[in-house]
């Protein structure tokens, strides 16, 4: 019998849900009772809504346990680990019998995430055993030329996964064609889109795949130095990257004369960002690496000609690099057999918001939004009505329910007014106000505008002011038209992607939910009952039983009243969070 293996998902969100405590508990019992099994850490398993997750692999198969706590893990150790009897009621996935969550996995194809949640990201040998670093070795052993590698990437149809969607192979070709003694490879890990965590998960769960992808790119274009520009908000990702880089250096995969090839030098270091969304734009990112304010500059010259320190530079996103070793090792066809005519392969999405099963999913391009939300995601929380889905973060837009059949590919998404973006997919239900969503994103881009272009700097501010007043019931006739006018001016007059796309959330919500804007402006009403200035919560004296539940749950103590007496909400203190409304068993709270 092979040794039993126990894996604990220890990515940031797992840890936040308490996976560290679970790991420590298993370790303590294992040592105390001298149990014989292998305990290992792994990255994001993807089923975030069931965190913390523990997988047990024994000679009968694999069993994934979800929502593990102190009590459950003790029971699992007693039964499954000690006597080999799985605890069925806690299992969320196994190959041996069907499970209600199976549809979450069925439509997924894991390429970029192939090792996430499978291997221990802190052990290079586990990556190697899973086929890691074989792609580089394949290139060297078969003397595959730089041009052939680039052609493979072009043939695969891989497009930039950071949001732009530019063909990766072509980008490499431009950098290859630039003649210089020094070239750079940069990995853009400045995942700034609020509501997206794909890159974090890849970096935390499979950092070596990114290093290998960068090494292949370096070979292809002839670069000697690599930089990973990572958000400072991702401490665990930075830690694991640094561990991985150190291990790769020890193995001779990074540094001088790498892979035993004389004269091939390539090394990578991690550069921590300092919190600026605009640094996701490539010229701003390079300015930041050079130690300056992250302000974009005019292109051309493109980075492939004059980039970091004025040398030819190739920049790709984390997910893009993670796909590269797989494509090189298995051939372009292994990747482009998935997807649509113009969007090949798979795409990772961070599925969040009002969705039943939120998590990290990787699907073939071309799958419909509806399938992702309802088949994989299991539908809307509390079975409320699906209203819209937000794609592409602050640069993207909201796609309404009636366009849910839209296939996920770069061009179809663009046609709706949204963008593919980096993969944040935030689901909204009937209680989400679309005007407030637009205001939220404008608030974000307005703060994150670097200030270089006047239209972006001041225009977003004016738009935010208008949206704020609409949300507060102070909107005026003509505001919608004014927003549209400003939006097109900002799009036309901004230098970089941030400004050019900043109005998208406003334009798409006006396009699909104009009636909500009008209700705010004309009737001073928020149809989703979400805008605070336009709603009030009051107690219905006829229905209130004085059970005190509302008062106990109010976070700001705005509700007063004796037991068995009618309660009262102090409107001055009330923050309109709606807890009283949802907690009251007697429908005694009115929302108007």
């Amino acid at each position, binding site marked *: 019998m092979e040794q039993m293996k126990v894996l604990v998902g220890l990515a940031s969100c797992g840890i936040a849900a308490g996976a560290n405590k679970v790991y420590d508990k298993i370790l303590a019992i294992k040592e105390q009772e001298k149990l014989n099994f292998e305990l290992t850490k792994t990255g994001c398993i993807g089923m975030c809504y069931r965190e913390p997750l523990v997988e047990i692999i024994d000679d009968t198969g694999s069993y994934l346990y979800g929502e593990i706590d102190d009590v459950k893990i003790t029971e699992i150790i007693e039964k499954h680990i000690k006597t080999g009897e799985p605890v069925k009621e806690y299992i969320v996935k196994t190959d041996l019998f069907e499970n209600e969550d199976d549809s979450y996995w069925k439509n997924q194809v894991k390429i970029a995430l192939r090792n996430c949640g499978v291997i221990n990201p802190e052990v290079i040998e586990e990556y190697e055993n899973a086929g890691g670093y074989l792609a580089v070795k394949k290139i060297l052993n078969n003397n595959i030329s730089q041009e052939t590698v680039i052609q493979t990437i072009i043939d695969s149809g891989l497009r930039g996964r950071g949001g732009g969607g530019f063909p990766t192979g072509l980008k490499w070709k431009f950098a290859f064609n630039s003649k210089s003694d020094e070239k750079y490879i940069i990995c853009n890990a400045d995942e700034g889109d609020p509501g997206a965590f794909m890159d974090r998960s890849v970096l935390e769960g499979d950092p070596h795949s990114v290093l290998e992808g960068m090494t292949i790119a370096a070979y292809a274009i002839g670069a000697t130095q690599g930089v990973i520009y990572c958000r400072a908000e991702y401490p665990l990702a930075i830690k694991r990257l640094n561990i991985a880089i150190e291990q790769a250096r020890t193995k001779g995969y990074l540094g001088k004369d790498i892979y035993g090839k004389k004269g091939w030098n390539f090394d990578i270091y991690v550069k921590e960002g300092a*919190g600026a969304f605009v640094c996701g734009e490539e010229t701003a990112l390079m300015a930041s690496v050079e130690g300056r304010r992250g302000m974009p500059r005019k292109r051309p010259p493109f980075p492939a000609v004059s980039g970091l320190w004025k040398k030819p530079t190739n920049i790709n996103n984390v997910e893009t690099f993670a796909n590269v070793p797989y494509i090189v090792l298995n051939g372009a066809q292994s990747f482009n057999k998935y997807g649509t005519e113009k969007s090949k392969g798979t795409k990772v999405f961070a599925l969040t918001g009002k969705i039943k099963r939120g998590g990290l999913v990787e699907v073939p391009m071309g799958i419909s939004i509806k399938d992702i939300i309802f088949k994989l995601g299991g539908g809307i929380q509390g079975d409320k009505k699906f209203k819209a889905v937000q794609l592409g973060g602050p640069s993207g837009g909201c796609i309404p329910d009636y366009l849910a059949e839209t296939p996920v590919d770069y061009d179809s998404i663009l046609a709706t007014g949204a963008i593919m973006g980096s993969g944040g997919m935030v689901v909204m239900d009937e209680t989400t106000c679309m005007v407030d969503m637009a205001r939220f994103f404008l608030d974000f881009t307005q703060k994150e505008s670097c200030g270089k272009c006047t239209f972006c700097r001041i225009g977003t501010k004016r738009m935010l002011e208008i949206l704020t007043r609409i949300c507060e019931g102070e909107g005026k006739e003509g505001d919608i038209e004014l927003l549209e006018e400003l939006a097109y001016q900002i799009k036309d007059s901004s230098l970089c992607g941030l400004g050019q796309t900043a109005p998208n959330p406003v334009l798409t919500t006006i396009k699909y939910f104009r009636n909500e804007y009008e209700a705010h402006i004309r009737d001073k009403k928020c149809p989703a009952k979400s805008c605070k200035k336009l709603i009030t919560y009051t107690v219905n004296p006829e229905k209130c039983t004085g059970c005190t539940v509302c008062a106990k749950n109010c976070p*700001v103590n705005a509700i007063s009243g004796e037991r068995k007496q009618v309660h009262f909400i102090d409107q001055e203190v009330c923050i309109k969070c709606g807890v009283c409304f949802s907690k009251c068993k007697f429908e005694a709270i009115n929302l108007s």
Partner: protein
Amino acid sequence: MRIQRIALENREDNHEVVDLSQLDSVIEKFKNKKGITIPVLQAVQQIYGYLPEKAFDLISEKTGIKKSELYGVATFYAQFRLKPVGKHIVKVCHGTACHVQGANIITESILEALKISDGETTPDGFYTVESVACLGCCSLAPVLMIDDEVFGKLSGKTAVNIIKEYQLKHNN
């Protein structure tokens, strides 16, 4: 654009007592390298929790980077603070997923309980509360972070309880 300036009252009578002796060794590490502005400032903030005004003078003197450039970078990036902070930093996530799940309620409840405004420090110097962009734990939304510890799936009430319990636990 977000610009935090060094507060005026702070400049007039600068009583800031800062031990700058630790800075020499930090700056030494970065000498003669290129692109060091951000890492130097990050290292300095690591020591003090913020960037003291007097540190700018010293960094500029030792590295030759102009003060205006240092200040320009410090005010550009969200990470850098120009005012002292409390012992523990509460970051309330305001990413898209958290916003949809009611992050505003979390912030308001905490601020109401601590009787401060966003970005301020409690009078006892224990907490500084900040609203931040995405922490990347979207599936646990809404979330907050106290120093390095993340708390998820919050409501206004549980957030306030967590803040209070944390202070009780760490006050000794």
